[in-house]
């Protein structure tokens, strides 16, 4: 299996973007009360509840994307039929980030306000850390397997 540099760079770029969003921009939104936390000081909620939960979601989502990339790079697909198994694999791996959202919210968050906003923000984060990287940068044998990849991939890889 040969990892392609542009694909790796794109994946890492989305990780960086996701990290920026999750660890810089979203906390700023909470600090400035754009997303309202009313039952405790936002700074305390951010450091004690938001950061640990977000770290979990970030690590699981990024790991899932990396696992998908390196696992699917070994795929030896000799017919369209054989793709179905890999499609299922993509969804199964994608379950882990989804589960991490639930664990993060249930384990670390105690604020009802936080529950509402995190239930909205975490899926976007997972979309950015798992779905988009796999849709734009999956290895050649499965490049059009993730949903939306047929439309997204050409945006980042002209001529693909």
């Amino acid at each position, binding site marked *: 299996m040969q990892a392609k540099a542009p694909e790796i760079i794109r994946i890492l770029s989305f990780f960086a973007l996701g990290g920026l969003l999750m660890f810089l921009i979203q906390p700023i939104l909470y600090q400035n009360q754009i997303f309202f936390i009313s039952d405790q000081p936002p700074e305390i909620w951010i450091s004690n509840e938001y950061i640990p939960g977000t770290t979990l979601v970030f690590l699981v989502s990024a790991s899932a994307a990396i696992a998908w990339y390196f696992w699917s790079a070994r*795929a*030896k*697909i*000799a*017919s*369209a*039929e054989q*793709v179905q198994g890999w*499609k299922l694999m993509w969804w199964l791996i994608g379950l882990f980030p989804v589960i991490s959202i639930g664990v993060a919210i249930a384990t670390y968050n105690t604020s009802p306000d936080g529950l509402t906003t995190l239930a909205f923000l975490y899926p976007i984060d997972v979309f950015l850390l798992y779905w988009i990287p796999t849709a734009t940068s999956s290895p*050649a*044998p*499965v*490049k*059009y*397997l993730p949903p939306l*990849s*047929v*439309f997204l991939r*050409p945006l980042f890889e002209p*001529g*693909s």
Partner: protein
Amino acid sequence: MSLYGIGIGGTGAKCLEAITHLAATGVFVDAAPSTKEGINVLFVDADETNGSLERAKNSLSLYQKTYALFANERNSIPLMQTGVSSFDLWSPFRNASTDKQLAAFFSYNSLKQNNSTLGHLFDILYTQEERNANLDVGFRGRPAIGSAVMSQVDLDRLGEEPWRSLVERIRVDAAGGSTPKIVLYGSIFGGTGASGLPTIGRLLANKLKKENMRNGVKLAGIFLLPYFSFTPTGDAEQVYARADQFMLNTEAALRYYLTEAQQIFDVVYLLGSQTLSTVEFSVGKQSQRNDPHFLEVYAGLATRHFIRENPDQHSVILVSREIKDQISWADIPESGRVKQDLSAAVRFAYVWLSYIVPELAIASSKGVNLGGIPWFKRFYKLDSGWNRFASPSNSESFGLNDLEQQEAIARISDWCRDYLRWIVELHDCQGETIQLFDAAAISSLSPGRDELAMLVKGKNVSEARRLQETIPNVRVNLDKPDTSGKGTIGLARTLYKLCRLD
């Protein structure tokens, strides 16, 4: 420079079949590169329904239809680059209004009445069974019968096609400054070939001499010595070819060439095998359908040698093999080039039939799933559902279900099947071990067999190379931006380039 191949009898037809397949794979590309020139073939056989002849004509027809598809793609790949046109079939009985019996052909009854001396001579030369045998199955392995019939051929009567057109085309080629090359193929131990080769060779040489063209034309004979044998079945008719007389026939024929016919041909190639392959007995017609034999491939390669090397009339060139009863790539003349061409075509045909065609069939009937066939949009239009938005260059592509594209897929598939059939049957040689390709793998066309490296025998393939030469890798590499055109032909060309690995 044009090549004219005249295949005489069943063996001659099989040689032309081999020529056709070799031409398709590109073996003659550097020998006859121009599409204007190329190869012109003529079949000669009294048995117009001979099974080997029908198979050769079918292979030629399939190739011609596929060759036409690549008309706009000349010189990009060796595949389908050498045109093969046909003067069809000539039978010495074509204009005969009489029964196809030797006696009727020579008006035996009249001869006996009007010229008893000649009639008695006729009786001495031919038995009653031979005089009355029906010759629509060929000359029944009797050169004496064939020679008598063939000697009545009069090439001076230009009205007789296809000889008139053949000679005219040779004249035009010669007048254009090129040196036309004519090759006669046939066995010298059977009936039609043994009688036709010297007779037609002499008639043609005399005709060319009469037309002041002989010096500007090269004439070669590729003679096949005994290479197969059979056991007559219990219900065989009395007059039939006898395998036990093949060596005797051959000795007589070679003596004839030595004493009487050295001036006919500029070059003579003799091909034979110590091991006689066993074939099923048949008197003639469709049941006389012998499998392809590797000697016919050698006949094709001898043709290539004749075209390229222009051998001197007095040169003696020997070809032999390393191990008795075995043929490997080391035994093939110019094996590097020939192996490359034949192997690339085998891989191409294998992948086309086992992978491309099934995927396109599913795409045609159930719609395209780009996740499954990512390369699809490089060659065909995505014109249904959300896929329409997936490719900016859609408008330049062809629709998979367009009649023209479906026709192209069918023609290429037919050619692939016929080519692989020929390759597999070549390996099914009784008494010989052919170590060129993995015939079992080729004939199975198993999708699980995705290691293309293993289709070609005799090369030590590294593990890394073996893992690279697979259908999954072809699937990925078909989806590269630098494809060789759109539509089915673009797909075929791109696939061929991927399959030309050496």
